C-alpha cells in the first residue's frame, strides 16, 4: 500500500482501491449475497413479500429432488429426479469437454512453445485468435449449420465415401450430448491452450534435451519433465474450461438436441419462464457449490495446489 502511494500518489491510489472495492463488493459479493438470501424465501405474489408468508425455508432447494424419471446411464436403467439427472449429465459432459480440450491443446501448446520456429509464432497465434473475434453465438450457429442433417459435414463425409446415409449429429451418435460436447470443445479450447502454452514456454529447453540425452523416449520426457512443469497451466486451463462449459447457456440452447438438457438451461427456465427467481437462485447456489467442490476434489486427486493455479 505504501509502495502504491509512493509511486502513484494518494489520489490515484484511492481511485485504484475504490474501483477494486466497488468491483468486488457491488458487482460480485452483493449480487451473489442477494441471490443467496432470495434462495431461502418462497416465491410469492408481490403483495405477500415482506408479509407473514415470507419466511426462510429450504423449499426451493428441495424442488431439485422432485419429479423422479426413469433414465439410463451407459445403458444402466436408473430412476432419478429429473433435475438431478440434468445436473449429473452437465457435470459429466463438462468434464468430458475439459478432457477433450486438454487432449487437443497440450500437443498444440507444446508445438507452439518448443517446436515451432519462433518467427512463425505470431502468425500461428493470430490464426488461432481470428475465429475468436466472432461472437460465441455466431460460432455456435455456424456449428449448427455444419452439423445439420443436410449440412456440409454430412456432405463431405458422403463425398469422401465414409458414410452413405446422412447422420443426425444433433440428435447424437454416441450420446444425445455429442453436439454440445463438440461445440463447447471448439469454443473453449483456447482457454486451455494459453495457460499450458505459457507454462511450457517457461520450461528450460535444456531439461527436455537432458531427458532425451539420458535415454528417455519422447513420452517419458513428457510424463516426467514437461507435464509436471506444465501442471499449473494444465490445472488453470481445466478449471476455466470446466466452469465455462458447465455454465454455458448459449451453446446447449443453439446446438443441443431435444433430449440433451444442460443445467444452466434449467436455471434459466426457473428465472425466465417460471419467473420464480427464488428457486432459480437456489438452483444456481447448488450448481455453484457442487462445481466448486468438484474442482477442489479434482485438484486434490491430481495434487494441484491453489497457489499453482494463481501463477
Amino acid at each position: 500500500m505504501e509502495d502504491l502511494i509512493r509511486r502513484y500518489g494518494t489520489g490515484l491510489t484511492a481511485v485504484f482501491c475504490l474501483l477494486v472495492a466497488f468491483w468486488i463488493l457491488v458487482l460480485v459479493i452483493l449480487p451473489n449475497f442477494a441471490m443467496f438470501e432470495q434462495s431461502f424465501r418462497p416465491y410469492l405474489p408481490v403483495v405477500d413479500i415482506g408479509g407473514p408468508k415470507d419466511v426462510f425455508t429450504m423449499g426451493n432447494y428441495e424442488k431439485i429432488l422432485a419429479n423422479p424419471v426413469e433414465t439410463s446411464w451407459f445403458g444402466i436403467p436408473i430412476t432419478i429426479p429429473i433435475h438431478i439427472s440434468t445436473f449429473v449429465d452437465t457435470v459429466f459432459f463438462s468434464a468430458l469437454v475439459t478432457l477433450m480440450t486438454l487432449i487437443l491443446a497440450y500437443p498444440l501448446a507444446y508445438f507452439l512453445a518448443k517446436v515451432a520456429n519462433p518467427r512463425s509464432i505470431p502468425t500461428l497465434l493470430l490464426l488461432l485468435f481470428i475465429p475468436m473475434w466472432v461472437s460465441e453465438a455466431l460460432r455456435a450457429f455456424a456449428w449448427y449449420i455444419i452439423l445439420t442433417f443436410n449440412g456440409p459435414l454430412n456432405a463431405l463425409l458422403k463425398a469422401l465415401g465414409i458414410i452413405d446415409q446422412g447422420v443426425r449429429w444433433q440428435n447424437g451418435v454416441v450420446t444425445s450430448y455429442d453436439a454440445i460436447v463438440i461445440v463447447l470443445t471448439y469454443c473453449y479450447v483456447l482457454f486451455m491452450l494459453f495457460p499450458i502454452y505459457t507454462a511450457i514456454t517457461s520450461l528450460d529447453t535444456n531439461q527436455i534435451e537432458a531427458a532425451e540425452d539420458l535415454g528417455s523416449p519422447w513420452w517419458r520426457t513428457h510424463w516426467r519433465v514437461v507435464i509436471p512443469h506444465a501442471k499449473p497451466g494444465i490445472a488453470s486451463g481445466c478449471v476455466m474450461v470446466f466452469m465455462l462449459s458447465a455454465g454455458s447457456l448459449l451453446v446447449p440452447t443453439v446446438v443441443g438436441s431435444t433430449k440433451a438438457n444442460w443445467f444452466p438451461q434449467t436455471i434459466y427456465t426457473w428465472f425466465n419462464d417460471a419467473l420464480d427467481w427464488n428457486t432459480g437462485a437456489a438452483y444456481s447456489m447448488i450448481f455453484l457449490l457442487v462445481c466448486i467442490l468438484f474442482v477442489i476434489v479434482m485438484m486434490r486427486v491430481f495434487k494441484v495446489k491453489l497457489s499453482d493455479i494463481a501463477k
Partner: protein
Amino acid sequence: MSAGIDLENVCCDFGTFRAVDNANVSIKPGEFFSFLGPSGCGKTTILRMVSGFIEPTQGAIKIGGKDMRGSRPNQRPTALIFQNLALFPLMPIWENISFGLEVRGVDKATRRKKAEDLLKLVDLPGAADKMVSQLSGGQKQRVAIARALAVEPSVMLLDEPLSALDLKLRQHMRAELRAIQKRTGVTFIYITHDQGEALAMSDRVGVMSQGRIQQIAAPRDIYDNPVNGFVASFVGENNIFEGDISPVADGMASLSGPHGNFRARILPDAQGKALKLYVRPEHTKLSKTAAAENSVEMEVTEVAFEGAFISVHGLASGGKRIQAEVKNDGVTQAPAVGEKVFATFDAARALLLPDANVRG
C-alpha cells in the same frame, strides 16, 4: 567401458554460416579432451553433434568406431552435462540421478541404491532426498555429474559446466572432475573458453577459432609450441614483433623490423608465410644493459605486483607495448616506473608464427 570418438571431415552449416569447418580429431578411449576457444568458435556445435542434437552437414562422427549418423541423443552412449546443468527441479536428487535408469526400466530399490552410491562417489552423501533448489552451485554440479555417470556412458560431454561457479569452487571442481574421470575411466570431452581450465585438466586440448581446429596437442605443447598466432594469444600473453623474415639455418630465422633484429625459432611449414614473432612475458627478461641479441630498450610505465611475480609493462620506441614478468623470488629486483631497461629474450623461447588458420 569407455569409447574413442572420431570426427572425420566434420562440417556443420547453419544456413550460410559454417559453424564447424572440416574438423578432424581422434579422441582416445579414456582420454580427457578439451575443446578450447572463444565463444562462437564452434566448440559447442561439435559437442551437440557428438551428443546427437545436431547432425553434421558433412563428415562422420564415430563413437567406438560406430558411425552415429541418424542416431538420436537417446540412442547414443553419451551423457551431456549442460552449461546450466538442466537438473529436473521437480524431482528429488535421487530421482534426478536415477532418471536414466528409470528410463531403462530398472526397479526402484536398485535405482535408489545406485543413486546413493553415486552421491558417495561425487562426495555428496545424504543428499538423496533433498530438492535441487536446496543445493549450492557446487553441489548441483556434483549432482549433474552423478546423473550423467548413472547411465554408465562411454563418453561424457561437458559444456562449460564450471562457468557459473566462483573462482575457488571452480578450481576445486577442476581437480574433482579430473579425479572422477581418472576413477571412472570414461572418455571426457570438455568444452571451455577458459584456457587455465583446459590446460590444467586435459590430456589433450583442441584449440578452435572461427569453426576451425587450429591445433590439437597436449596442454604443455599448446602453450610452449603453438602453431599460430591465434593459439599463442589465446592460451597466454605475448610480446609480438613484426618485420621481414630472412631464413637462417637449423630451424631458426631472423626478423628485422622497426624495433631491431631478432632471432627466433621457425617451424618448417611456416616458411614463406607472413609471420610475426611471439615471445611470452615470462620469457622476457629485464636488464640494465643490452644483450648480444634479441634486445629492445623500453621505458617502464607500470609495475604491477601480482603475488608470485611482478608484472612490468613498458613502452619501446614507436609506442610498442612490452610486458615482462619478474619472479618474486626475493633476489631479482623489479625496475621502477620511468626507468629505462632492456627487454631481452632467448631465441629458443621465441617463435615466428603465422596468424590463425581461417578460411578464404
